[in-house]
């Protein structure tokens, strides 16, 4: 890793050498791939003003982990178990910051960063993404809630939902802004609505036990360490906040939003507008880290993403989970059946029982509203996962599959999008009979492994592929290293000690 004007061995250029950005011939050598030309870093937006792209990640990350898995653990083991959730989400906030470090410094995805370190690492994620995300399990939770609400069979909703997502993202240029606005409003209502329900049905005691439980570090009842429950706890930690590869995909969202050096990379378009796509450069860019002015702008970008990570990502995820945990506690007070069903792991039945308990305490409409929120969460997850999966696979395929550059990246995006939709429809109609919860179990296992693996990749990429002035600090490396040990350690402990994968 060196920079040069003509050859890789030269020293990093001094700031005086940088004048006109596009005529700058200097490059940054990172790993074995094509070096990155030096370009100007754009000015960062005000750090505390706009709602950044992380909000999108939050909307996608708030899923079954928050709505079902953690409320379940709280009801079974007590609120003290939430210290593990606190660790999981805090770790994810740091991961977000570190993922964005590479993406904003280079305009490249973390997959490209992994390929710069060692290409098989990138291929691992390419294959893992297919194994994990080709299953339509994420769709079933919302579709089942919709079935409970309307009686429409969940497979029908699932198939129609997937086709709708495919059409919408294929017409992206026209429809996407509308969809984003609509989802934005729905998410706003979701946040307001869960807060209001919690304010109506919850109590100070529910809230205080939920919050104080987060600080009961080390609490692990004997039953939690049993073969039946330890894998569940590991899976729940993996589902705290964005799970699996969502954080990696967020580097592509940041690039498309033009964050940091992502401003120099063109956007992916919908299939209908693929012809208008600008030429995609074959690598990212680097800014002059020896230039104090550029470093000042870099600090601005770091402040911007830190605000997103701490206040929006960490804060909103915590708030929504706290609301759902309070709802679960309120439901358990009204209906003891809820706890029994949760213990048995009957997710759909437990969610229905929670809905029923609100209906019993209030009216059928309140129970319906709860199911409506679950369906909304499912819809958000489906929209986000299909888009992110296709984005990630298209990115890796475009840069690394021989011959793929004959196509535009938007065409590859459409190929993966419709591929995953077609497979999803076949699975929903003729797939394994063990039901949607079984699909989620497989997801949880592979997700955990991918999360441990991306922590290792982050350490390698940020410490070896970036110039020294913008590499992570020691404490950050320690936290990410802890993340790798945390995810992989628990996964393999579960396998070796109990012979059971996470669930």
């Amino acid at each position, binding site marked *: 890793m060196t920079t040069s004007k003509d050859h890789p061995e030269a020293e990093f250029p001094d700031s005086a050498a940088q004048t006109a950005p596009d005529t700058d011939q200097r490059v940054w050598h990172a790993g074995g791939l094509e070096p990155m030309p030096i370009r100007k870093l754009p000015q960062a937006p005000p750090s505390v003003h*706009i709602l950044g792209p992380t*909000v999108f990640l939050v909307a996608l990350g708030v899923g079954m982990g928050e709505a079902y898995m953690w409320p379940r653990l709280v009801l079974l083991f007590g609120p003290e178990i939430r210290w593990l959730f606190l660790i999981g989400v805090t770790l994810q906030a740091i991961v977000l910051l570190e993922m964005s470090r590479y993406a904003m410094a280079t305009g490249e995805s973390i997959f490209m960063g992994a390929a710069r370190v060692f290409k098989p690492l990138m291929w691992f994620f390419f294959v893992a993404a297919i194994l994990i995300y080709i299953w339509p399990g994420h769709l079933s939770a919302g579709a089942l809630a919709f079935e409970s609400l309307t009686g429409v069979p969940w497979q029908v909703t699932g198939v129609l939902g997937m086709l709708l997502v495919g059409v919408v993202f294929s017409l992206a240029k026209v429809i996407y802004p509308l969809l984003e606005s609509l989802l934005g409003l729905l998410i706003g209502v979701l946040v307001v609505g869960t*807060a*209001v329900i919690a*304010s*109506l049905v919850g109590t*100070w005691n529910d809230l205080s036990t939920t919050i104080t439980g987060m600080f009961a570090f080390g609490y692990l009842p004997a039953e939690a360490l049993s073969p039946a429950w330890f894998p569940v706890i590991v899976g729940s930690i993996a589902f705290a906040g964005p799970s699996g590869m969502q954080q990696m995909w967020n580097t592509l969202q940041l690039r498309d939003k*033009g964050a940091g050096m992502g401003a120099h990379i*063109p956007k992916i378009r919908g299939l209908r507008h693929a012809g208008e796509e600008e030429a995609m450069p074959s690598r990212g860019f680097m800014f002059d880290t020896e230039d104090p002015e550029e470093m000042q702008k870099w600090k601005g970008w770091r402040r911007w993403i830190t605000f997103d990570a701490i206040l929006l990502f960490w804060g909103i995820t915590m708030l929504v989970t706290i609301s759902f945990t309070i709802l679960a506690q309120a439901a358990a007070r009204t209906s003891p059946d809820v706890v029994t069903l949760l213990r048995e792991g009957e997710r759909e039945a437990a969610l229905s029982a929670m809905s029923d308990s609100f209906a019993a305490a209030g009216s059928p409409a309140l129970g319906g509203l709860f199911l409506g929120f679950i369906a909304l969460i499912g819809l958000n997850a489906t929209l986000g996962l299909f888009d992110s999966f296709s984005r990630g696979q298209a990115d890796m395929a475009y840069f690394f599959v021989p011959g793929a550059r004959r196509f535009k990246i938007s065409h590859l995006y459409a190929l993966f999008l419709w591929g995953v939709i077609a497979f999803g429809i076949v699975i929903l109609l003729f797939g394994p009979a063990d039901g949607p919860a079984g699909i989620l179990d497989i997801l949880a296992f592979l997700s955990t492994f991918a999360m441990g693996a991306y922590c290792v990749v982050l350490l390698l990429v940020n410490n070896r592929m970036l110039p020294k002035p913008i590499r992570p600090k020691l404490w950050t490396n320690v936290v990410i290293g802890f993340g790798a040990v945390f995810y992989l350690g628990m996964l393999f402990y579960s396998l070796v000690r109990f012979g059971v994968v996470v669930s």
Partner: protein
Amino acid sequence: MVPSRIRALAEVAVPALASGAVAGLVVAGLAAMVGQPVGWAAMSAVTLGLPIALLGGGYGLLVASGRVRLGVFAPAAVYWMIGFPLARLLHETWTPALLGGSPAPPADPWGFLAYQGLVSLGFAVGFVWLNERLAPRWLLRIKAHNPIAHQLFHTYAREAEQMQEAKQRRRTGAASRAGKGG
């Protein structure tokens, strides 16, 4: 002059009032859904939905008068941490009274207020989120005749310009790279 300024301020406050009203409608709808008689639900709409909508409008006035920066979360969090619990206290206490019973304050008012105050943080996030999506379009609509809206709109416009510049850089950069890129 004063009435026209008040009118301009009030007009700028409309999106926040609408955000509060949306939230208020959710609240009132939920109250109606808690299986209480129609009268109780309607009264809840008044005792909870209306205060929240008015508080939303109040927040819009603070933005319009420049006391609070548009889109910044912290002031909204503080504002709702005070406003939301008071609205809930009003709802809890006076709904039975307005329906012919006697006022029924919560058994542990401080615990109640503290709980509602914490829940209000989540509420504030949703409120800011909704307001951020409604305000720019409304300001664009009224800025021609409303000087306060004009000024506020330019805050948004500067941001949009920054984004546009970034987009332009991307396009010109991509065009110049077309020969080199893959």
